[in-house]
């Protein structure tokens, strides 16, 4: 009987909704956007806030705008018409994407976006229905922009309890909430560099730089920060540093810079985009660092820019002494001396053209380096030196260059043939291309050196990269240029001879020393095992080179040797794979770290886990780490929310948390058992279950509550 009454009541409540045309008006379709006003609840309770959303579904390549639209555009605006006492909060914006329209940077949304708005009906809400009316304006752009608008009406029944909307709608809201930036777990500050440009510092200690990329700061409003400037964020174990460009606002230094910090974190499962709202107050004590992080930074001594330029020039000069460059130089010089005064004028022009050719080649090389870097990503390369794999590869590079200089192997001289035809050329153009090709032709000798220089240049900001490479080019061209201006200098030149080979062989030793230093850096990063892998790898590489030196005609034996050499090299590089699994230097003292919060959780141990599972209670295990950003976000948006806590409590779930910051071996063993590469990892044993359910790496409050309660209900 009571059931029948309830049915009647609900029918009465539902009836007005069915008769209203409201539903049809909650969708507005324009040429480029389908906009819909959605509610997360299908019945409202007076005094109980609920969420609605304006959903915009754009045509491909069209976008609407974020609260700060960037260099052009306009954010979506909603004007509400609500019954007395009902309030609507401002739009809660999801993290935008950066949309580059011919160099003009826009912040907005492509595809599908939900703009969330919290509606609060008063406790004394009168009437059986709540009518929400909204006028929305939005600008939608592709290469052209169109302002559009829509009027939306949504009428919801009012009852004594909140009724959630259908699951598809709830999923939409759940997903949308996941796109909203969370409050930053780390404090942030900003300083101002000498140039007047601000730089942002996020004090996120203990991050793993090699797992983070695509860091970008979206300023919340126009003015303090230029939207258009490229950002090259740097992630280190100390935190995140983002040099910004001063905006156009006339005001002096602002009190604070607010915005959204976005990054991509690589976890065991893949990459996850995370975003945090940041408010950075001005900190006058912050000092901008002029020199970028280099390998030297790790040992506390930075290679200054001018020193680098000096070394590059010197390096270029040394290139002239290489056996495949010097004899040519000496021969040319000798011929200049014999020429008459008039011809000398021509020689000077020749020298200048040659220098220009060399410099253009180096400039092109710098361009190539920059292009490669730009295509790889915006994240500063400095962080690579934090990675043991990178240290290992650099150590290998130094070692191989050393072997080459020692004469263990020669780089094929096939390219030198290209230069043969050049000798006969004359005229300024000829000299220019001689310069260009000198760079190419000298490659058999200079390639190892160039590889090292390019490697260094790659770790520098763009202007430094260009400057360093140009300095090297100038060094290479300088002796020839000097000779064309003062042929008398020729007398001071040493004769080509065996000393050239000796010099080259001598230069191998600084290279070996550099390799030793890189291995030392590696041990700082990985512990003593690093030495074993690095030196073992070097032996394998040396072995491979030795095998390949028997330059006989093609024969089965040659192919066999090549095969073995390839295997040896692969094994050497396989060492890099092993390094990733090695504990970091900081982990010498294994144990829980300060970064993980255990409040409300028991510490994980295998024994406690087995005991809890055996007692047939539901068990939830959270494997986390201080450096795991995705873990942190999951905690904030899904694990430590009021609803989830209530669900944990109500179901009597045993909550265990494991701290993998320092790669606790017990947890590592369990991860391996489950075939997982790392954290976050969430395991759930429904009451009485023997095997755990592995939950996704991205949690939402709704999914957590559903997981915990559904099995609980099933139990009853």
């Amino acid at each position, binding site marked *: 009987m009571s059931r029948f009454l309830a049915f009647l009541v609900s029918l009465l409540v539902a009836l007005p909704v069915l008769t209203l045309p409201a539903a049809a008006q909650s969708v507005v379709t324009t040429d480029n956007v389908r906009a819909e006003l959605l509610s997360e609840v299908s019945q409202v309770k007076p005094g109980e806030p609920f969420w609605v959303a304006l959903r915009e579904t754009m045509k491909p*390549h069209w976008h609407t705008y974020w609260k700060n639209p960037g*260099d*052009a*555009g*306009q954010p979506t*605006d909603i004007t509400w018409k609500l019954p007395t006492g009902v309030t609507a909060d401002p739009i809660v914006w999801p993290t935008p994407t950066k949309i580059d*329209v*011919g*160099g*003009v940077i*826009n912040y907005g949304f492509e595809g599908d976006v939900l703009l969330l708005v919290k509606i609060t009906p008063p406790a004394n809400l009168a009437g059986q229905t709540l009518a929400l009316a909204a006028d929305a*304006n939005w*600008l939608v*752009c*592709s*290469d*052209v*922009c*169109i*302002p559009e608008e829509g009027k939306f009406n949504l009428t919801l029944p009012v009852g004594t309890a909140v009724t959630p909307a259908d699951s598809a709608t709830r999923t939409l809201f759940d997903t949308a909430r996941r796109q909203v930036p969370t409050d930053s777990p780390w404090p942030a500050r900003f300083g101002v560099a000498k140039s007047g440009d601000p730089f942002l510092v996020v004090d996120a200690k203990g991050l793993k730089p090699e797992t983070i990329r695509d860091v970008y700061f979206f300023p919340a409003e*126009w*003015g303090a920060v*230029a939207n*258009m400037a*490229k950002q090259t964020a740097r992630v280190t174990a100390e935190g995140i540093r983002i040099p910004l460009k001063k905006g*156009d*606002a*006339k005001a002096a230094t602002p009190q604070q810079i607010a915005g959204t910090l976005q990054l991509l974190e690589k976890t065991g499962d893949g990459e996850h985009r995370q975003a945090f709202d940041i408010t950075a107050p001005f900190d006058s004590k912050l000092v901008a660092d002029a020199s970028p992080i280099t390998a030297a930074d790790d040992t506390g001594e930075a290679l200054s820019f001018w020193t680098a330029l000096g070394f590059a020039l010197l390096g270029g000069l040394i290139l002239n002494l290489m056996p495949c460059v010097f004899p040519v130089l000496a021969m040319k010089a000798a011929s200049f001396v014999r020429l008459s005064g008039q011809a000398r004028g021509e020689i000077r022009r020749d020298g200048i053209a040659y220098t220009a050719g060399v410099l253009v080649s180096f400039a*092109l*090389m710098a*361009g*190539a380096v*920059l*292009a*490669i870097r*730009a*295509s790889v990503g915006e994240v500063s390369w400095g962080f690579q030196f934090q990675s043991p794999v990178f240290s290992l590869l650099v150590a290998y590079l130094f070692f191989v260059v050393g072997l080459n200089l020692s004469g263990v192997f020669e*780089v*094929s001289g096939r*390219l030198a043939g290209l230069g043969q035809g050049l000798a006969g050329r004359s005229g300024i153009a000829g000299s220019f291309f001689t310069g260009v090709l000198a760079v*190419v032709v000298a*490659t*058999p000798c200079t*390639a190892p050196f160039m*590889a090292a220089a390019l490697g260094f240049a790659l770790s520098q900001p763009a202007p430094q990269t260009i400057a360093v490479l140009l300095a090297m080019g100038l060094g290479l061209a300088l002796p020839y240029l000097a000779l064309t201006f003062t042929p008398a200098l020729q007398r001071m030149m040493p004769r080509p001879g065996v000393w050239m080979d000796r010099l080259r062989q001598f230069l191998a030793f600084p290279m070996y020393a550099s390799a030793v230093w890189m291995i030392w850096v590696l041990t700082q990063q990985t512990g003593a095992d690093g030495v074993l892998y690095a030196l073992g790898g070097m032996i394998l590489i040396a072995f491979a080179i030795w095998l390949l030196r028997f330059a006989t005609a093609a024969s089965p034996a040659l192919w066999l040797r090549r095969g073995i050499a390839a295997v040896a090299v692969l094994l050497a590089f396989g060492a890099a794979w092993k390094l990733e699994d090695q504990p970091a230097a900081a982990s010498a003292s294994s144990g829980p770290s300060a970064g993980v919060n255990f409040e409300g959780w028991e510490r994980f141990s295998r024994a406690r886990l087995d005991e809890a599972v055996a007692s047939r209670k539901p068990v939830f295990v959270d494997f986390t780490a201080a450096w795991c950003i995705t873990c942190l976000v999951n905690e904030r948006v899904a694990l430590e929310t009021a609803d989830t806590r209530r669900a944990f409590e109500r179901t009597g779930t045993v909550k265990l948390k494991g701290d993998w910051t320092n790669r606790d071996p017990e947890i590592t063993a369990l991860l391996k058992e489950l075939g997982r590469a790392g954290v976050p990892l969430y395991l759930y044993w429904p009451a009485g279950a023997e095997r755990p359910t592995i939950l996704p790496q991205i949690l939402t409050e709704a999914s957590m509550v559903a997981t915990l309660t559904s099995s609980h209900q099933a139990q009853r």
Partner: protein
Amino acid sequence: MSNVVVHRRSLLLASAAFSLAPMAARAASDLGKAAPPFVATDSNGKSWSLATLRGKVVVLETTNHECPYVGKHYRSGNMQAQQREAAAEGVVWLTVASSAPGKQGYVTAAQANEIVATHHAAPAAVLLDPESRIAHDYGATVTPHMYIVDASGVLVYKGGIDSIATADRDDIPRAKQYVRAALTELQAGKPITDASTRPYGCNLKYPGSA
């Protein structure tokens, strides 16, 4: 060493990348500094050079007649009114059509004159800037993007035409007209209160942009 080949290939790649990314180098003009010089031809074939306008206040207005934000200020008559006021004060108002050929807002000289006639606009001239050079040198990102150069050739204002960043003409009466206010202050010899404001409008249609 095979990586030589890689280098040479990347050289091509790099030069291609550089020719495709002219925006990377776009310089923003600085307030209080000499305004970037330009020489351009107007829709009547007359040549204009910023240098020869020394001694006069110059207003630059980037335009794209198909942009709704430009439309807001022309359909309401706001832009034309300010152009006439400026002319009466001896200010040289130059409308700059910076859309690249094939992009929205690109105009030929004849089309530019036709638009001026339809809107009863009153700029001193419509400069044709199909390579977006002026826009580029001034760092313009939107249409309309407004600049004021004082009599000594110094950039004294950059930003939006007014304070309400919408495409709705009903907002004009409520908005602070930044350019008008700046010109008034400039004529009175006062410092400009809002010398750098948020520009708003459509993306400026640079060559090569999507």
